[in-house]
């Protein structure tokens, strides 16, 4: 637990000081919203409601990829990753600390993107703020769970910027599908659909448990 809290504190403090990942992720997702606002202006509120869920999740998934790719770049400077790997604890705790820090960052970007999307497409997302936030939080956990593991794998490869999306995107399909379906149902009915929510929960659990176990080997040379 000490290791989890130490890594979480270190990652959030470093990000607060530099803000380079948060700014890049936010700019990217907001640009996507702006581009779609001008290229696909919805003709009616119904059309806006149809477009919004897919846009929200695609924008934030690609923004998350951008941030996850940089998450371990921080650890490459001065070979700090080796310093982490030396900790006398199960390395799964390092995964949990880094993944939670990533999830916090992704969730913050998702919230700002959702607000911008609501304004740009005139979609009443604010009416469902609490449920949407819970849904986005589950999505952020899924993205961070798989992304942190594969970020650690990719960081030791020559073409890490290329390798991470290639490894990660196929795995994120269930998160995106469940997220889009649940958001669409939320906008239509005001309720969270059980099936996509269950898929999101199961995917999150598989990613986090699997990554916790595998992280020990990922950090070995």
């Amino acid at each position, binding site marked *: 637990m000490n290791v989890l809290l*130490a890594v979480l504190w*270190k990652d959030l403090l470093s990000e607060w000081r530099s803000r380079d990942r948060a700014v890049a992720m936010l700019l990217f997702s907001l640009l996507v919203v702006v581009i779609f606002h001008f290229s696909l202006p919805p003709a009616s509120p119904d059309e806006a409601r149809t477009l919004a869920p897919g846009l929200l999740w695609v924008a934030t998934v690609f923004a998350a990829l951008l941030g996850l790719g940089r998450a371990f770049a921080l650890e490459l*400077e001065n*070979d700090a990753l*080796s*310093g*982490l790997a030396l900790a*006398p*604890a*199960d390395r799964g705790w390092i995964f949990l600390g880094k993944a939670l820090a990533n999830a916090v960052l992704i969730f913050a970007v998702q919230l700002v993107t959702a607000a911008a999307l609501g304004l740009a497409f005139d979609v009443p997302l604010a009416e469902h703020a609490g449920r949407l936030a819970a849904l986005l939080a589950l999505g952020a956990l899924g993205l961070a769970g798989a992304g942190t593991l594969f970020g650690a794998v990719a960081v030791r490869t020559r073409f890490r910027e290329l390798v991470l999306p290639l490894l990660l995107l196929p795995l994120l399909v269930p998160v995106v599908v469940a997220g889009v379906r649940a958001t669409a149902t939320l906008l239509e009915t005001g309720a969270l659909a059980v099936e996509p929510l269950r898929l999101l929960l199961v995917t999150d659990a598989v990613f986090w448990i699997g990554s916790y176990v595998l992280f020990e080997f990922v950090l070995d040379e």
Partner: protein
Amino acid sequence: MSPPEAAVRARGLGKRFGPVVALDAVDLDVPAGATLAVLGPNGAGKSTLLRLLAGLARPSLGSLCVGSQRESRPAARGRVGYVGHATFLYPALSARENLVFAARLYGVADPAARAGALLAANGLTSVADRRAGSFSRGMAQRLAIARGLVHDPAVVLLDEPFAGLDRTSAARLADALRRLHAEGRTLVLVTHELGVASALADLAIVLERGRIVHRAAGAELEAATLDAAYARAVEPAA
């Protein structure tokens, strides 16, 4: 008198990276409290040996024991302090924050107090709240050594700690290593400088292409003798 307990014991230790044999059939005993110098040309396997001892890499062959054989891998990592080529420091964090972070990783009881004590011991109190990214090579090296000692390890591994240091910083580091030796810690020191090995080590090995090609102890560590033996082992006459 019984022989001193070995702090580090390796038998037939080997490490391969794909087809490349980085370390081959290394047998090694380092008694507790001794200082071992690991010498050899570039690419001889010195850093690989140190990273295996630190627990950063798994051996491909053979066995390795740092401390007790009954310990788990994480527990064995906790017995070791490692000062690598790189400093392991986060440039965006201050010197104090770097040490507090390391202390938390190692489960030190009072991280802030330990960080303060190490900063004072290494003459870094006046720059404790400056970001590590702004430090000179000498200051960063002192902070890296403090980081390596944050959990008071019994075995300290140092990978070319004198590289890039000016004379004053090198002398200060040599004094620090003598202090660690006097405290009874086991030191494993990778270096290219035979003079450093002569001055600080109780034992020395010379690695060449992943194998130990020479061992020295006692009078064999005298500078001229070690220099001649190194030349014979690493650069044999054609």
